[in-house]
């Protein structure tokens, strides 16, 4: 199944993963690289902002509960910047509170996934599916 997907992706997409838990970062890194994504790790939102000054990822994988400014403050900040207003973001959090989900979608994320509910494989599938199909993803690519 993975080999099939590989064939469909001609360009290597860059994914910025903002996640403070090192073991999870390791797992994500392994999975994304196996799926031929370019992987950019950030353990805090502040670090992610620094990376965004130099890099233009195709998608941001964002955790919410992190030390420091946290996922929402980061998201609000990048949405104020016209360059990142439409940048695809997926929230991958342990929390499933409706308030957070609502707030996330108000900040124009393309999906909100509860970590413990999904297999890593399933999350990657969703990301891939979005990058291939999403109009906003495509429009971002053209830019």
């Amino acid at each position: 199944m993975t080999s099939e997907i590989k064939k469909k992706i001609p360009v290597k997409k860059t994914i910025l993963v903002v996640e403070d838990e090192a073991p999870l970062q390791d797992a994500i890194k392994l999975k994304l690289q196996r799926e031929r994504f370019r992987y950019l790790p950030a353990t805090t939102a502040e670090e992610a902002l620094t990376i965004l000054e130099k890099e233009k990822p195709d998608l941001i994988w964002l955790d919410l509960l992190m030390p420091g400014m946290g996922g929402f403050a980061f998201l609000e900040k990048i949405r104020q910047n016209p360059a990142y207003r439409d940048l695809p973001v997926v929230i991958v959090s342990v929390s499933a509170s409706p308030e957070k989900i609502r707030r996330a979608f108000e900040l124009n994320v393309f999906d909100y996934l509860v970590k413990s509910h999904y297999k890593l494989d399933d999350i990657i599938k969703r990301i891939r599916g979005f990058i291939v199909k999403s109009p906003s993803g495509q429009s971002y690519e053209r830019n």
Partner: protein
Amino acid sequence: MKSIKTKTISAFLAVIGVMIILIALIIVVNLGLTNRYKQINENIVYEQALKDEVWLLVEDGYGGIKTNDYSKYTGRLKKILEIENTLNSRFTATAVDKESKVAYRSVRNSLTAVIAVIEETKKDWEEGGELIGTSETFQDAILKFEFVKQNTTDLLLAETKNIAKVTQDIKKIQTFFFLIVGIIVFLVTLILVVFSFVFTKKISGSIIELSETARRISEGDLKISVSGALLERKDEIGSLSKSFALMVNNLKEKIKALEFSGKELDKKVEEISANNRELEKTKTAMVNLLEDANILETSLKKERDRIRTIVSSIGEGIIVVDKKNKITLINQSAEKILEITAAEVLGHDIVKVIPLYSGLERMTLDNHPVAKVLQTGKIFFSSLKDNLYFQLSSGRRFSTIIMAAPILGEKISGVVLMFRDASEEKELDEARTGFISVASHQLRTPLTSMRWFSEMLIDGDAGEINEDQKHFVERIYQGTERMINLVNLLLQIARVEAGRLKIEPVPIDFKNTTQGVISMLRVSLEEKKQKVVIKTDPDPFPVIPMDQEVIWQVIQNLLSNASRYSPAKATISISISQKGEFIEYAVKDTGIGIPKKYQKRIFEEFYRAENALKLVPEGSGLGLYLVRMLVERWGGKIWFESEEGKGTTFYFNIPVQGMKYKEGEVGLGV
């Protein structure tokens, strides 16, 4: 028209006038006669005196002087003498008696001459001069005097004779006059009597006729009418008759009208007396009521005192306010909790004197519970999550739970505010909330990494593993999954138990939601090759407002239970139908069933039936407990029918109006 009054008055005036004239005439004539009579008598009285005295009267052209002692008047005479020449008047000396009757008279052209004459005459007189006569010694001259020589007695006799004659004449005249007067008086009286008789007769006749008519009318004879002769009269009788006739006509009409309304009146009278009877009854009832009220009042007073004692001894703070937010009662507990005394706050506005905060914001008339209750008339309950605080003057701030209820009469007359110091509960609640959020993050993050890594091991991401290794890792994976589910369930239960779960209804289709749950459970269903059949009545089934997460959680738990305890290839039937005011949702399986002896306790926390424990050892015993709490929170019911070994049907219902919105801090998702 000349009225009777006018006629009578003029007749009387005429008679009186005639009488007055007659009487006056008689008086005047009589007076004249009397005077004359008097003169004659007086002359007789002074008869003797005339013998002795001669009066001298000196007329000076200015009225004269009468004296019998002219010497006394010498001065006066002299004075007259002085003007004699200028006046060139004549002087007459006349001797008169006391009655001014001339004894003799002498006229001279000077006073001196007069005096001389008088002296001379006097001398003669004194010498007893018998001769009294007129001497005209100087006929051509100015001097002229006269003597009367006559015997006084003779004179007097002659006079007396005259008097007697005159007296007789007078008496005759008087008699004549009296006769005339008598006749006149008699005639006048006669005329008056006749006149009045005729007149009275004329008036009283009409009046008798009128009064007869009146009498007959008064006896009820209404056919009679006033005679035409009376009506034609032009005096008061005429107008009286006309008025009377008019009155009679009016009376006839009135009597007709009265007869007409007589029946109406009878009816009215009957109604009024019926009303009166009612009133009498009401009065009696009122009196009874008042007696009862007195008894009631006494017992109310007792009851009031009892309630006061209870209120003051209650541990909760109680404040009663009137409809203007003024504090009218405060119990001891309230004084203690708020660190105030009743004297400080009684009669004051509660909003002003007892600062109440919602979070950090001071409550005002707009949002104060008391104001809300006064406005809506509904009971106000607060909970810990409302974050109400009292702030004391000492600076102490503590969480409170408030209940405010209206005092209802015809209108809201005030509010009872009941509250307690909830600071301990608040601390506990905060600790609990803290635990839930810590648990949701701190437990699930490591569980997630366990899940992902075991998943990758199974997938061979870390290299090929043998069947045994794969089997072991799969066990780790399953255990992790169970752990995650258990944590989720515990967190959900904690939220529901804390009353922090909110319900946000949105229109939801039962069938779609159920199919969503089925597709989520597809893996396990496919594993056991089980089938789920959904039937709705009616089909399609109407959309109703529900909280998506809550209904999802309930259906998912019931469906996964049905699948778990049913054999392979079993069919699970779901039916949705309307039963009166409720929608009934049934999940029927063909599983192991619930033995009778466990049925009572099946919804208890962590409770599992023995046969279930045997078949599925990894179950938590939390699923049905959570389902029951959720169904009860939306106001529904959950029950089941089951036979051991044959299967179970779980039912829950929901009002046709759907779920109602409920405030809360969190949803079911964790």
